[in-house]
């Protein structure tokens, strides 16, 4: 097995893993702030990316404006979902499966709406840069480096946000102990709305970053959600850094099983290893921080 192939497999695995991680990060943020699994996260990413593509290709807007629009739309959508629907369910103490059905249903709706408005074609956005780098024989696109940078930026930003800002602390407190938080004067409902807004924004960022690489289409939502979910859960769900590690783990597992076992058995091998990891490390890769997983 040549070194070059291994290098390329690792580079590809990490790139794909980062994509999963970006989606997973947003899901972890939403879980952290609301104890919910957002099954429409991939669709939010698609909505953000599709909006940007629409603005660039049909409305002929400059890319930066289109991208901002994409983020804004996903954020607004996510916020509206919280205010209009999630809040209602919380008010009546709905069970976990109700939230799951809600977000699955919304995912259906969003992807169908994208199909209806935007069509069936797969679209690419212009990349941040077209440079191509060669490292140990592996081809790495400039976009990948941007994704790494932005993922790191988001991660550090989230860490600082949750640790040092009053708002971040309040958001966390509101989800971990809603009653306790309320007695200390935190507006729990507002915090959850903020969480959803942040989650929507992160979904759009993920969608926008990956569109130059894999192309956006209406039917991409579920696969993004599934991979992001796997990344987030593997990382322990409440830990954004865990989602990053989880995503890269899955990306590398897939890539290496193609190289060393068989491309036909990629999913079977990668997911079997995933199950084994979960059994061995039941709290997620990053340990105890994942206790809140269930």
């Amino acid at each position, binding site marked *: 097995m*040549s070194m*070059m*192939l291994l290098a*390329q*497999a690792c580079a*590809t*695995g990490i*790139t*794909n893993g980062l*994509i999963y991680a970006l989606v997973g990060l947003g899901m972890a943020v939403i879980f952290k702030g609301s104890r919910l699994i957002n099954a429409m996260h991939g669709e939010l990413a698609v909505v953000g990316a599709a909006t940007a593509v629409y603005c660039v290709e049909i409305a002929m807007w400059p890319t930066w404006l289109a991208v901002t629009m994409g983020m804004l739309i996903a954020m607004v959508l996510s916020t509206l979902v919280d205010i209009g629907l999630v809040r209602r369910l919380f008010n009546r103490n709905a069970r976990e499966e109700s939230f799951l059905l809600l977000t699955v249903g919304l995912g259906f709706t969003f992807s169908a709406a994208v*199909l*209806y*408005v935007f*069509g*069936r*074609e*797969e*679209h*690419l956005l212009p990349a941040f840069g077209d440079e*191509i780098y060669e490292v140990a024989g*592996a*081809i790495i*696109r400039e976009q990948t480096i941007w994704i790494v940078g932005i993922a790191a930026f988001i991660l550090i930003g989230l860490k600082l946000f949750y640790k040092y800002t009053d708002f971040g602390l309040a958001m966390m407190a509101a989800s971990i102990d809603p009653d306790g938080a309320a007695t200390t004067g935190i507006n729990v409902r507002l915090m959850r709305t903020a969480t959803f807004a942040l989650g929507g924004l992160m979904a759009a960022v993920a969608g926008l970053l990956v569109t130059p*690489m*894999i*192309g956006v289409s209406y*039917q*991409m939502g579920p*696969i993004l959600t599934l991979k992001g979910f796997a990344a987030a859960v593997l990382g322990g769900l409440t830990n954004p850094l865990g989602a990053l590690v989880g995503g890269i783990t899955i990306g590398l597992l*897939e*890539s290496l099983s*193609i*190289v060393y076992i*068989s*491309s*036909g058995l*990629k*999913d079977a091998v990668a997911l079997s290893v995933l199950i084994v990891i979960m059994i061995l490390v039941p709290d997620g890769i990053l340990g105890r921080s994942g206790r809140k997983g269930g």
Partner: protein
Amino acid sequence: MPISLTRRTVLGAMLAPAIIRPTLGHAAEPIRLGAILSATGPGAGVGLPQRNGVLLAVKAINEKGGIAGRPIELLVEDDGSNPDAAVTKANNLIFSQKVKAIIGPTLTASTLSVGGVADPEKIAVMPFTGLGLEMEKQRRSVFHMLPTQDLNARALLEFVTKNMKTRKVAVLHDSAYGNIVMTKLKEVNATYNVDFVAAEKWEVGATDVTTQAAKIKATAPDVVLVIGNSATPFRNLRQIRMNAPLMSALGTASYEYVRAMGDAADNIIFAEFLVAEDPLPYQKDFVETFHKEYDTFPKTMEASAWDAVHAVAAGIAKAGPDATPAAISDAIRGPYAGAMAKFDFSAPDLTGLSLSSYVYSKLEKGKFTRVPFTAGQ
């Protein structure tokens, strides 16, 4: 909803209503046909072009006065690329709607499942797939509109060995359609003796196949056969500077895939049936009609769909508009000269296409040109 209405007019045929009723002016009782196409799911990439071709053919026939003075009424169903759904749709069309014949389905699996319902009723089915399993030869009313995978495999290797004159071949294929072709490639290779240096697979719906591409690149093949309904592998191969010529089957030979390929749409050869920029004499009429209607060029899928409707229409004309579905099937079972190619639905493979009817095209900088090469000689 005013917005959706404007979208509807802009996107025209794509969002056309499910039932195409004949326009006013036809007093005669319409002849009812059904269509099962994959308008959503992984098969939509080929299902939608087929839908355009089918709709155009119905419109053209009705404009010319229909079949024996009676217009066609077409019921279009979407199977969502799923064979179970296709069965449900077929049950509806055959037993509830009492259609005379079925155009489609789009996918091999749906063809097998629909065939199981339609064949006992002797209702003609015109799927846009090639004969898949040996047992399908017994289904004498399922007429295939595309070549068998055996023939597709031959058409690819013909070009590789006789035009490119190379033997170092790699294959990148999907786990569905591509997997069937791969099996056939290995079988027919007894005659061609090429060396498959790599055969890699991607799962339907994959968003990235770069690792498979890298594995192929590592074997340094002279040509890569890319088989499956996705633009992603083309992009991924080119992104890692795999610059050898690529070759593909007819499914991906469409302008939509070319657009999705982006910069990768270069130096790709297709074994297909229609290059609309440079059509063969028997294809000119169809290309012109299509261009007038949609303002774009058709490809093989549209032509095949056009032919399917016309072959059924010819069968009905021959058997008489009030004939039973079985009689219509019998009438269809024979030679038919279409815009895509010459068919013979009475052939053992229920298609009758030959290697020589393939047209090879080369994609350069996003443009198709016809390659002067005839296979099977």
